[in-house]
């Protein structure tokens, strides 16, 4: 085992240095800034596109007192009633017909007085606006007849509510934690897919396979990518914190998780690491089978969809803490980190996390072993012989000096 870890660190060091020293890494670190700029730009465009159309205007051709009452009544009603037309008092002497035939005509013209109003419009307007205009007229007439009653509004300070509400709200923290974990894992772990392509295209894999255990190659590559991912997350977190400080209270605050923020953040880092290693080992195993970059790209889509499916399952488990669904989400290796982080947000116990972290580590190792076995069998064209070779050894009666201890 020591030899496996030693060799893995040699690979990790090489890969990490190559990754971090490349110019592409700088662009990679800038990814969230680019995303933020794009999001802000898209938001601006969306807001512009979503701007409501101009409100229909009804011209009021009445004495100024009546016009003022109508406009005041319309303003009061506007808070409670949707779809009211805007009212625009016309000061110049003109007729309803000339207004409707003008260059920028209103949808209707209200003339006469409050006691004898008249609404003029075209056929469509005559069907659509009378009810709404009548509502405004009634309100204006009502305001004229009755004095408005002042409403006495009082605010009473109550003692803080018990934890029930907070517990309910913690599911929000759990979901936000899961979402952050999912996005970072999906963004970063997928890169592992193409990680062995360089070794295969440059024929370096032959030297590596003859020098160190295949598990060390996989593990080393995962360590390097994980280290790179943690650096990226640290940089992005610093960027996010700067924005948070700048935004101040404008940012929404989350209810504190059940284990407290420091432990929750620590668990978040640990669960990101295990999620990364779990998905990374799977991706590395799958990617190692691919012969070309094109094949890797083809594999990326189903792999991402699979990751999304696991995330949705873990999301469903957020609202079922302690149920069978949540237990299953914690046990199934790929959903386990997501479900466990949600648990940390909603339940204060620490020991389940120690068990789950150990479980996820074991699953990672098992996936690596499966991946390396498949790699040796399908890519290096080895395998199928170990069982027979052992049988041959047994038949040979242990001739010669035989080391059965494996790598030490």
């Amino acid at each position, binding site marked *: 085992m020591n030899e496996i870890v030693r060799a893995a660190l040699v690979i990790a060091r090489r890969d990490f240095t190559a990754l971090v020293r490349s110019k592409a890494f700088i662009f990679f670190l800038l990814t969230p800034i680019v995303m933020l700029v794009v999001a802000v730009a898209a938001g601006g465009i969306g807001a512009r596109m979503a701007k409501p159309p101009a409100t229909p205007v009804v011209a009021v051709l009445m004495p100024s007192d009546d016009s003022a009452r109508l406009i005041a009544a319309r303003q009061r009603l506007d808070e409670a009633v949707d779809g009211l037309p805007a009212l625009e008092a016309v000061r110049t002497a003109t007729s309803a017909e000339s207004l409707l035939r003008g260059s920028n005509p209103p949808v209707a013209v209200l003339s006469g007085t409050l006691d004898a109003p008249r609404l003029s419009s075209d056929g469509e307007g005559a069907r659509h606006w009378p009810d709404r205009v009548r509502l405004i007229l009634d309100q204006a007439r009502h305001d004229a007849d009755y004095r408005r009653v002042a409403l006495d509004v009082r605010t009473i300070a109550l003692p803080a509510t018990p934890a029930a509400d907070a517990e309910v709200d913690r599911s929000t923290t759990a979901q936000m934690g899961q979402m952050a974990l999912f996005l970072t894992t999906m963004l970063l772990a997928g890169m592992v897919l193409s990680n062995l392509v360089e070794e295969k295209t440059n024929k*370096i894999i032959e030297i590596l396979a003859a020098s160190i255990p295949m598990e060390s190659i996989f593990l080393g590559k995962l360590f390097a990518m994980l280290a790179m991912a943690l650096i990226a997350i640290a940089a992005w977190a610093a960027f996010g914190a700067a924005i948070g400080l700048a935004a101040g209270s404008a940012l929404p605050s989350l209810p504190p998780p059940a284990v407290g923020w420091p432990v929750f953040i620590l668990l978040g880092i640990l669960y990101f690491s295990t999620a990364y290693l779990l998905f990374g080992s799977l991706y590395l195993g799958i990617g190692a089978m691919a012969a070309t970059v094109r094949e890797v790209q083809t594999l990326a889509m189903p792999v991402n969809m699979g990751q999304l499916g696991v995330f949705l399952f873990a999301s469903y488990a957020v609202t079922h803490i302690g149920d069978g669904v949540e237990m299953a989400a914690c046990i199934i290796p790929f959903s386990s980190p997501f479900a466990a982080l949600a648990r940390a947000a909603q339940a204060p116990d620490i020991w389940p996390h120690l068990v789950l972290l150990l479980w996820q580590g074991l699953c990672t190792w098992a996936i690596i072993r499966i991946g390396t076995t498949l790699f040796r069998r399908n890519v290096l064209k080895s395998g199928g012989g170990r069982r027979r070779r052992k049988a041959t050894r047994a038949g040979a009666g242990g001739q010669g000096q035989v080391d059965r201890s494996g790598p030490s």
Partner: protein
Amino acid sequence: MTPPAPSSASAIVAEGLVKDFNGFRAVDHIDLTVPAGSIFGILGPNGAGKTTTLRMLLGIIDPDEGRCTLLGHDRPLSVAKQVGYLPEERGLYPSMTAGEAIAFMGALRGLPLAEGRRRARDLMEGHGLGYALKRQVRQLSKGMAQTVQLLGTIVHEPRLIILDEPFSGLDALNQQRLEEMIRAQAANGVTIIFSTHVIAHAERLCEDIAIIAGGKVPFAGPVEEARNRLRPRVRLETRAADGPWRAALPPGTVPQGRHWRFDLPEQGVEPLLKALIEGEAGIMSLSIERPGLHDAFVAIAGASAAADLARTSGSQNAAEARP
């Protein structure tokens, strides 16, 4: 054939190695014993099973049948730190510097990086490449890159070096350097096993060889033993083209005008000379030639394997003029 008895002085022992690929038997019950401290050549045309055999010896792939030990261990990775390997398909990380690439290959075999860097510098300078120490691999010529990889193979001072077609792609000068490097390593007690389809390299370097053809090993042993399998050839030139003395020529003599070629008779040339003199053949010249490794290869592996070998090595023959 019966392999030589394995002993503690054997760097490699392989018994009955078999490897099939999708129903094709690439290696068919191969036995090999490589004496420690020797230069051992594996000869055979492309596709004969040389690389597959080496990969099985190194543990890169498992044999379907048979067993092998490397430096006395049946798990090659457990002695990886004492082994150097240069694969047929060369490979280096293009973005690494030459020095870092050598140190990295040493680190894979357990050499501390700092020591690897120091040795890389010494090796590069020793081979006249000190100026390229900090150059990226992608900036090196093909020959330089191959030299860098070779230096990476020996940087950790292994006890056993396995080279798969090491001369492939090298010009005559670099081939000569490589031969010198192999001899220098052997002089330090290192066992070297290399595969080649160029017989001249094996003939110049090896004490022992294995001939592989069609996945089998029809011969494994000292080069001298392979050559001694053939009778020496006699070349005779006579003044007379015919006469009763011709009856004294051994059966199977190949006539070419007044030139005659035949295997050295078991009783030697003296009785023949006497008959030629008495028959007044007029001996113009007579020479006895020991058969070369190529003749031995043809005799052992068969004409078709020899033809394959000649075909695959054809492109290299021009460059293999004795340095």
